[in-house]
């Protein structure tokens, strides 16, 4: 199909027909938050310095190249809060109540020695006691070493430094706890899950810590004065982040569920508000019941499945794509330093998308090897090509493309790599002068590898330096929390004999889903009611 997009460079010995449409459809997205730079600040924390925003602020200001992401993050937190404010009116959204206790991974995601998990709210002390049982609360504002264990299984999770800040002398003004745990994903995710299982605790929404600090007079907005310009960019980044979290199948599922639920709720609401004054058709409630039951089944199945199967999307996605037999698999093997893909001189050896997590220049990266882009020979290879294209659509952040190509006008980050430079005769002509900026590399001899790695590092830094993305661990915890919350609420719907209570359960369930998908106003409900029913007089 991309034949018209082919461009070959006659003087290059690599004849690389690259379909430009594939490349231009690769979305530009952020993946990875903070990296080494934030670690510096955390190391203060690790040494026992009180973790205060004001402190961080001045610290980051003095380190001028560092201050931007930090402050941007504060703004993002606010933007998130306000965004939700603007979409409130959805009734019964799960409470970000000041009474609830929230927890979040406060440090960045990725390779770091220490990760900081914070809680804020009245149940903080309780949570600390439960996780560090049988020991009691440590002295206030002193770093103490404690063994954290999972309250459900009693399994030890990590030996961690814990800090107990009873309110009001804390970052948020409420009771706060900090867990400084070892930075591995397993530990972090284990502690987060353990916290989530403590009654009264829930994952924090974006910006909730800051918001609470502000509400309790701990933070003055003027402290972040001068950053107003960032906000537009930040809200945009947040939108993209939400898209990224929800792209692919899961997002599609969530939106579908939210739609079903909104409709069911609208019908129940209509039955309450108009059931007796106006005549609604028969079976409105029964229909809603059926839909809710189906939704419950779907959600339940998904949740059971999600715990096992959902791959952790941690790290930037680097997709290697290009024409067949260009040496993509060789490059992947070279980068991952292990034989991930089978290589052979035969075109079309790789027929599927192979993903492998690697560490590239200190960045966690998910490297995808794809099938060569060509009109496939057999159905299997064609499917492989289709998946390769899809993977470009959904995952690609950095496309290391092997072979000559025209990068067209696409805005995604693209690194053009020409492989098999060893085949170029030293005195002969180089690759065509009309080629865009590119790198020469030989997977066979390793020539040009250093330059390639350096270029890749720059690209990754540009992508991963973006502070707008939530750590995927937390994102996943959030998904699970809200989907589980939705499922629980649907259970309440079934049990409620009182219709007002049943409707409330649906409102709560919808609130959980719309936390993931956005939207969720009352007007949506009224629109459906007036569309579906003849009411009013």
């Amino acid at each position: 199909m991309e034949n018209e997009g082919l461009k070959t460079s006659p003087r290059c010995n690599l004849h690389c027909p690259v379909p430009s449409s594939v490349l231009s459809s690769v979305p530009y997205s952020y993946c990875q938050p903070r990296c080494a730079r934030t670690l510096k600040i955390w190391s203060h924390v690790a040494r026992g310095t009180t973790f205060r925003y004001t402190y961080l602020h001045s610290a980051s200001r003095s380190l001028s190249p560092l201050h931007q992401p930090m402050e941007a993050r504060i703004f993002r937190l606010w933007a998130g809060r306000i965004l939700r404010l603007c979409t409130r009116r959805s009734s019964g959204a799960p409470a970000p109540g000041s009474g609830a206790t929230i927890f979040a991974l406060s440090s960045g995601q990725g390779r770091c020695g220490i990760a900081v998990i914070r809680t804020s709210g009245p149940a903080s002390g309780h949570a600390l006691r439960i996780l560090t049982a049988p020991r009691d609360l440590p002295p206030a504002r002193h770093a103490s070493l404690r063994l954290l264990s999972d309250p459900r299984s009693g399994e030890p999770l990590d030996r961690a430094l814990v800090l107990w800040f009873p309110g009001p002398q804390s970052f948020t003004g409420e009771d706060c706890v900090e867990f400084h745990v070892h930075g591995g994903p397993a530990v972090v995710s284990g502690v987060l899950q353990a916290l989530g299982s403590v009654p009264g605790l829930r994952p924090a929404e974006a910006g909730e810590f800051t918001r609470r600090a502000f509400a309790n007079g701990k933070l003055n907005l003027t402290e972040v004065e001068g950053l107003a310009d960032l906000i537009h960019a930040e809200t945009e980044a947040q939108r993209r982040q939400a898209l990224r979290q929800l792209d692919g199948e899961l997002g599609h599922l969530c939106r579908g569920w939210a739609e079903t639920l909104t409709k069911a709720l609208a019908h129940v609401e209509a039955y309450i508000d108009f059931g007796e004054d106006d005549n609604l058709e028969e079976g409105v409630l029964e229909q809603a019941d059926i839909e809710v039951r189906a939704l419950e089944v779907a959600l339940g199945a998904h949740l059971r499945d999600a715990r096992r199967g959902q791959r952790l999307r941690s790290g930037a996605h680097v997709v290697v794509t290009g024409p067949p037999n260009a040496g993509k698999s060789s490059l992947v093997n070279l980068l991952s330093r292990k034989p991930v893909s089978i290589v052979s001189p035969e075109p079309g050896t790789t027929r599927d998308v192979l993903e492998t997590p690697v560490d590239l220049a200190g960045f966690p990266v998910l490297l995808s090897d794809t099938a060569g882009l060509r009109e496939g020979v057999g159905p299997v290879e064609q499917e492989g090509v289709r998946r390769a294209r899809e993977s470009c659509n959904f995952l690609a952040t950095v496309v290391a493309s092997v072979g000559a190509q025209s990068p067209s006008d696409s805005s995604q980050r693209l690194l053009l790599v020409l492989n098999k430079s060893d085949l170029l005769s030293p005195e002969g002509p180089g690759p065509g002068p009309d080629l865009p900026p590119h790198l020469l590399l030989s997977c066979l001899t390793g020539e040009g590898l250093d330059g390639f790695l350096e270029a890749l590092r720059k690209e990754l830094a540009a992508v991963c330096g973006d502070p707008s993305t939530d750590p995927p661990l937390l994102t996943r915890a959030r998904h699970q929390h809200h989907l589980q919350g939705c499922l629980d609420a649907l259970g309440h719907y079934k049990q409620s004999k009182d219709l007002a209570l049943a409707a409330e359960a649906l409102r709560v369930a919808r609130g959980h889903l719309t936390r993931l998908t956005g939207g969720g106003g009352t007007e949506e409900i009224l629109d459906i009611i007036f569309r579906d029913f003849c009411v009013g007089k």
Partner: protein
Amino acid sequence: MFYFRGCGRWVAASFTKQQFPLARLSSDSAAPRTPHFDVIVIGGGHAGTEAATAAARCGSRTLLLTHRVDTIGQMSCNPSFGGIGKGHLMREVDALDGLCSRICDQSGVHYKVLNRRKGPAVWGLRAQIDRKLYKQNMQKEILNTPLLTVQEGAVEDLILTEPEPEHIGKCRVSGVVLVDGSTVYAESVILTTGTFLRGMIVIGLETHPAGRLGDQPSIGLAQTLEKLGFVVGRLKTGTPPRIAKESINFSILNKHTPDNPSIPFSFTNETVWIKPEDQLPCYLTHTNPKVDEIVLKNLHLNSHVKETTRGPRYCPSIESKVLRFPNRLHQVWLEPEGMDSDLIYPQGLSMTLPAELQEKMITCIRGLEKAKVIQPGYGVQYDYLDPRQITPSLETHLVQRLFFAGQINGTTGYEEAAAQTESCSVARLECSDMISWVQEILLPQPSLVAGTAGMHHNTQLIFAFLGVIAGINASLRVSRKPPFVVSRTEGYIGVLIDDLTTLGTSEPYRMFTSRVEFRLSLRPDNADSRLTLRGYKDAGCVSQQRYERACWMKSSLEEGISVLKSIEFSSSKWKNLIPEASISTSRSLPVRALDVLKYEEVDMDSLAKAVPEPLKKYTKCRELAERLKIEATYESVLFHQLQEIKEVQQDEALQLPKDLDYLTIRDVSLSHEVREKLHFSRPQTIGAASRIPGVTPAAIINLLRFVKTTQRRQAAMNESSKTDQYLCDADRLQEREL
């Protein structure tokens, strides 16, 4: 637009009891003095009467100006109060000691609680009211309210003076000029009339002005408001025809009897005046395909419907029902208009077809085959003042101390037209007169006034509530106390006012329970706990007796709940004590009495039978027992809602300065569109600003940052020079060094 007759005739009752209002008019004072009041209320409809009595209850010397005293308490077209969502409002009016709930209880002829089976949080208290009784009782009440003076008179203009520097607004209202040229001064003025109305009545292709065309002088007030820059929108609605009672064949129709016992609207009433067995039934019939056919065939004769492209999303008329939901049977409720009235109000049959077709259509309907149409239905189009021009305390942004209640939302104003229009009022009293009036209407005669109109029955209630709030706030303004604002978390009235003042309205506003975020907390049964205590402490509009009753009820409830929580038995013991309850015995943990009360089959009586001590005393008061049961039903959810409410209240606590000039402030990057929206709606809090559609999160943050900076600088400047007057000057805000 005021029809006046015998202007200047003081009709105040009970003024002999009072020392203030008319003493100033007395002839023995040295110089001729202009009368001076605390609050003037213009208009004697639902909003006007509620506003006037609320202001008087708050201790303000109040003057109610109406064109005719004998039309006070005139009900608008649909003689009913309450309904789903609207019953909540009735309870809230009553919790603030408003009139209409009490008057309804004295005049109701058919009481029914809607949604009985759907849970007490969404019960809809509703009643059909006898027009005549309601009017009589209302007049008795109004004319006997201490501190309230009623005068017949038409307002020609407002007296405007220099604004107070510490508030926003172009100018301040300090009194009114009557048509006869006399002036009355007041600290606050509440406008509840259809001054701006420009109502048009539409039947078929004919339109008639509903209002007084030839009445030049009354335009003065309208012109003043227009000159001041108030923005006006246009809405439309309609009313059904009235049918002669004796011409309906009720015997073949579905009869609906009132509830027995009746649930009164007012917290202070144990029962209603007219006994359930004496109350009147309603009847139900349905439309049929013949009705559809008549509507569809005659669309070309129906200019009102043709224009309904931008009409409300719901179906206000039978035409819109047929057009949007064809081939269906639509309900028609036949409702009595009063104990001795000969008219039946066919709810659900609002229409604007030509009169002869209306009769043709009605006779197609089962039971109405021989029905005689006494007055045809018609559509009305009218102006309304955009509610985004007022604050949540109902004071206008433009004119200080001027309050609007009525006509700020769609269907208002209408009813005022009815009350203001003499010929109409007369026509409504006597059936025979009505017939002649109807005939007059059908012949276009501009000199004759047709003002009566069909309001949704909830609308008069919405007025009534706006009236109460406006009255309270006008009075508080006089005594320089902070305004009394009900938030979304406190009552349906808070939702209503917030929706109107921050979002405006493009269709006549209807109250639905689905609009309310905290529906399970804001119930009809607990309106007194929510509002009476606040009304007493913050507004002073609640009588001592009512306050004490609410306090007693609140403390009894709290005590009762804690007692119920403290009683714990094993589930098997509960099973033995209350065998009729389906308590599962699988749980090993002890079960609280409160949890047992959650079961549908259990009420306080059965619980008290099982555990007489200490529960017996809670069954003595029926209301207390019922409310304990309701509290138990919702207990688990209420805890979570309380947390959410706290959070919303935090947002509402982030106040924006009232004097911010959004159009000109520098140093803050807001788009022009956002500036205009903020300028128009003037949100009072960050919470309200964020609910305005089109105001972006970025704008909110910018705004917050700006306000914080300004406040800090202002504080610093005040510190250095406290006499620096221009700091307070709102007009010079733009020149300020920001």
